């Protein structure tokens, strides 16, 4: 039996070691990540006490249906990402180990203050990693906003601690359910703190500067893994611990809806590949937040899973394209996939899944979102979600058509000359993209396993027996 604390301790330990043993720090990094990615398959679902003090007095780590699959996805993808960028990560090996520890801590912890610590660890690692892209002013901007966010979060949990005398999530949840006073201001501060990390509008001023120049390494890391983990944390806090009610839910849902729509609007006008994806990530975060706030945890989980995988591929490929071509202006990427079909197909599958076309996993995400929203008698939100999806479809298809086709508008097919240049992207990147794309395709034809798992995950946050989901096997369940 393995201890999940090792997922945090081993990378941290190796991080210190790698400072001393500079020569072998890359092997240490790979070793540490390999160890984590193997370990995740052996951990058991339960609460782990750290340091001998029983919760709520001590800190505990929790492994349950909600975070187990995310732990697996994040650790495996982290390893994959490092392997795909092995040449680039050398100067950052130590920081990457810290980032891995931070992300695992965020997913595992069962304690609100401990969560703050891991937010800080993960953020600091992110700040340093982002300097790889040489956009120092923008990273500095991120540092300021990120620090402000974690301060707000800290302030929020200070108020909660003052009121309830505990920082343990499970304990806090029980006390809040039984309590009579709603500490609105604390909720809001925590929301604001996390909203910066999950990129809700207007809290997300840092995102554009950081992600629009992200490389094939920092892009997937920040845009996919960090974003996914932060959403999981948001769900844990707002779905499982704090129970919002009344106007608060409405107000915060409105922020989510604005984020969703504004994200898609901004993505529609974006002229650069990574700018499109960062805006689309903003929109997807808004969607997940809406679903968490509406208590539809199982579909929120589906959104996060789909988003982690699809954005991973999209940022990876976009980053590589930008590195090879030197820029990522969409208008100049005409027919870029014509001589790199395998990569293009993986990219296409991923983006088609993102816009929720049938045969791809995103379709079941979309259908289940609508089922869940209509079941809770929402009429406006699904309409707005569909409008957002319409805008998303338009720009994604525009993008795909550009990247697959050459020739000016009105030019006849027989006169179009095929491009001769080849997109020089390494085998590893192609293989990763194709495997992840195939996963989206397979789970698009047979999504039942993922969907059933997401129902279990949703039930961890709040038990709901009346959940209906749409799967390939049994239709409605």
């Amino acid at each position, binding site marked *: 039996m393995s201890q999940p604390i090792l997922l945090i301790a081993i990378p941290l330990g190796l991080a210190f070691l790698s400072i001393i043993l500079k020569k072998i720090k890359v092997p240490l990094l790979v070793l540490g990540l390999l160890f984590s990615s193997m370990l995740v398959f052996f951990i058991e679902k339960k609460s782990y006490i750290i340091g001998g003090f029983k919760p709520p007095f001590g800190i505990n780590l929790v492994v349950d249906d909600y975070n187990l699959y995310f732990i697996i996805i994040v650790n495996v993808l982290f390893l994959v990402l490092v392997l795909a960028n092995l040449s680039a990560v050398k100067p950052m090996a130590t920081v990457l180990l810290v980032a891995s520890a931070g992300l695992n801590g965020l997913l595992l912890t069962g304690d609100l203050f401990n969560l703050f610590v891991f937010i800080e660890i993960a953020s600091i690692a992110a700040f340093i990693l982002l300097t790889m892209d040489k956009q120092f*002013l923008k990273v500095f*901007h991120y540092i300021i906003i990120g620090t402000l966010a974690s301060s707000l979060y800290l302030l929020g949990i200070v108020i909660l601690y003052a009121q309830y005398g505990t920082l343990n999530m499970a304990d806090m949840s029980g006390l809040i359910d039984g309590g009579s006073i709603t500490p609105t201001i604390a909720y809001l501060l925590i929301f604001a703190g996390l909203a910066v990390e999950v990129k809700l509008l207007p*809290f997300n*001023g840092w995102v554009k500067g950081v992600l629009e120049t992200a490389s094939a390494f920092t892009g997937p890391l920040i845009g996919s893994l960090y974003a996914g983990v932060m959403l999981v944390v948001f769900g844990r806090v707002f779905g499982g611990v704090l129970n919002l009610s009344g106007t608060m839910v409405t107000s915060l849902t409105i922020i989510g809806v604005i984020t969703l729509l504004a994200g898609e609007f901004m993505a529609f*006008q974006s002229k650069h590949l990574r700018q499109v994806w960062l805006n689309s990530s903003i929109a997807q975060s808004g969607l997940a937040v809406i679903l968490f706030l509406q208590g539809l945890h199982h579909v929120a989980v589906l959104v996060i899973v789909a988003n982690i995988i699809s954005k991973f591929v999209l940022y990876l490929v976009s980053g590589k394209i930008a590195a090879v071509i030197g820029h990522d202006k969409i208008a100049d990427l005409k027919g870029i996939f014509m001589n790199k079909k395998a990569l293009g197909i993986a990219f296409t599958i991923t983006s088609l899944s993102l816009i929720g076309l049938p045969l791809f996993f995103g379709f079941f995400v979309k259908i289940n979102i609508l089922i869940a929203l*209509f*079941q809770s008698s929402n009429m406006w939100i699904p309409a707005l979600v569909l409008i957002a999806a319409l805008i998303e*479809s338009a720009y994604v298809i525009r993008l795909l058509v550009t990247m697959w086709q050459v020739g000016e508008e009105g030019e*006849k097919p027989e006169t179009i000359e095929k491009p001769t240049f080849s997109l020089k992207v390494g085998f590893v990147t192609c293989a990763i993209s194709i495997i992840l794309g195939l996963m989206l395709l397979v789970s698009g034809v047979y999504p039942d396993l993922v969907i059933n798992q997401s129902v279990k995950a949703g039930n961890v946050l709040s038990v709901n027996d009346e959940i209906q989901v749409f799967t390939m096997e*049994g239709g409605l369940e």
Partner: protein
Amino acid sequence: MTITMIVVGLMALSLVTYVVSKMSKGLGSVLTILGPLVALLFFLLEGSGIASGSSIGILQFGATKLGWFFSVTMLIVYGCVAFFNPYWMKKLVHPSAYNMLYILSLAGTIGMFFAVDFIVLFIFLEIAVFASMFIIPFGKSRNAAVVYFAMSTFGSFAFLYAIFMMYGKFGSFDISFVLGQLATEPTTAIWVIILMGIAAFVKLGIFPFHIWLPMAHGNAPDTFSPILSGGLVKIGAFIAIMVVAIAPTYEVLKNSYEVMGLPILIYIVLIIAAISMVVGTLMAIKQDDAKKLIAYSSVANAGYIIVGIALNDQLSLSGAMMHIFAHAIASAAAFLSIGAVSYRTGTTKISELGGMIQKMPITYTVYLISIISMAGIPPMAGFISKWLLFQSLASHGLMFIGAAAFFGSVGSFLYVFRPLSGLFLGQLKPQHNHVKEAPIFMVVPMVILSGISLFFGVLPNGLLNFIGKIQVELGVEGITTVDTAIMGNNGLLDPTLVFINFGLGFVKAFIIFMSLSKSRKVGLMDTYTAAEFVYDPNVYHYAKSYYAPIERLYEKHPDIVALYKGLVQRVVDLGRLLQFIFFKTKPGTTALFIVLTIILVLWGEKIW
């Protein structure tokens, strides 16, 4: 063979086609011919009572006569058009993908026609849409694909929202159950009818959603335009029939305000359809590109189909279904003949062509027959459907809609004559002197389609009797035929008799023509004008601004495309504005937003 096997088989075939095409483009394109033809064979052998087959997961199909009718129409079009594919393999940028998507879009449409639950219907609808969308940019335009997909997705999402509204009320996706329950929830029902109606309008290309037709049909590869016009837009007709005939629309609307004896909503639909006829006709008249011209004529014809479906009575519904069939066949044949000309000359612009009748007489005949059918002149199938529709309009006393339909019919003479005269007749351009008739395998499917148009124009009874059975299945009184005659409200029509009379007239004229002295054949340039010999053949060609006097009457018409462009521009502007506001490089601004939002939400908490 069951429906499930055919649909799943076609899906599998699309993948096989891709792999085969990678090895040999020709072989792959032959598969695109065999796929639809074999499926058509199964449908014809098994008849409309074809077994639906066991379900695979949620994939469950139910055999209906309506679905069979639509599938067979679609398969005839796909099968005939596919003969052109081998000739286009060299011209396409992604031939393997084209072959795969061709079959995939067919699988999507067939699956959709037999779906028993809404989600499956939606899945296959979307498959058909995105498969066809990826083919369009293989042609002349990249933007057309995006416009097509955005429009189509708008319709699909309206449809999806309606599906979920019904699901929210009745807790099921089963089509017949849910639609049957609609009458118990009138408010929901009206929303569902409107939303599904919008979906049908978008797919059919009814005004104001018609702008994607000329873009997509006009710019798609020449082999795929016939599919779009003859096949895929008919998905909209299928949805429309579902809304009006399967859903209890008239029952839901029975208490609503009535205009001319019809519920106001139905009358509005009729008006929109009438606008489509007029707009489609007027726009078609002024097109120089033959493919865009036929695309606009599809808009006008979609208007007829919607009128027939919306009235939902014995004559109108049978007329609509006959029109669906007749127009699918005729427009596919017309697009194919233009495609054949394009194959030989490389252009579809009327002003760049002329005198093709001398070089491609069979193609010319095919075009002539298909436009006769599209214009609704006996003895073609298009006449039967228009006769039925006019009968129904007359018996309802719908004079304004009738006037629009009449305008559309007269206008169709104008627009179908434009390519006839400019492209096929007139002066042959010297650069086209070397042009030959289309290859035999392109001629065969065109002749088959023309034969179908003629056959069902002369002997429509078999088809009409089957349509009558569909009508009974839909709960409408079936169309009746006596011997070779069709029963209308004010008399009967015997197309066979009409044909014999026409035929005798032709024979008489032919005899007179033969008995007169032979005319001497001269070269095209063996002529003079204004007492001068002209040596430049281009001067004799008057296909440019062909209908200038008519076009001048409405040249300052408002352009609906501008409206959509404006809408897109607003989305872009709003996106830019949001980006400008929220993504400042100054962290202070973000901090300010954070604080303001917290205050705002807190304030909201206080107020409520």
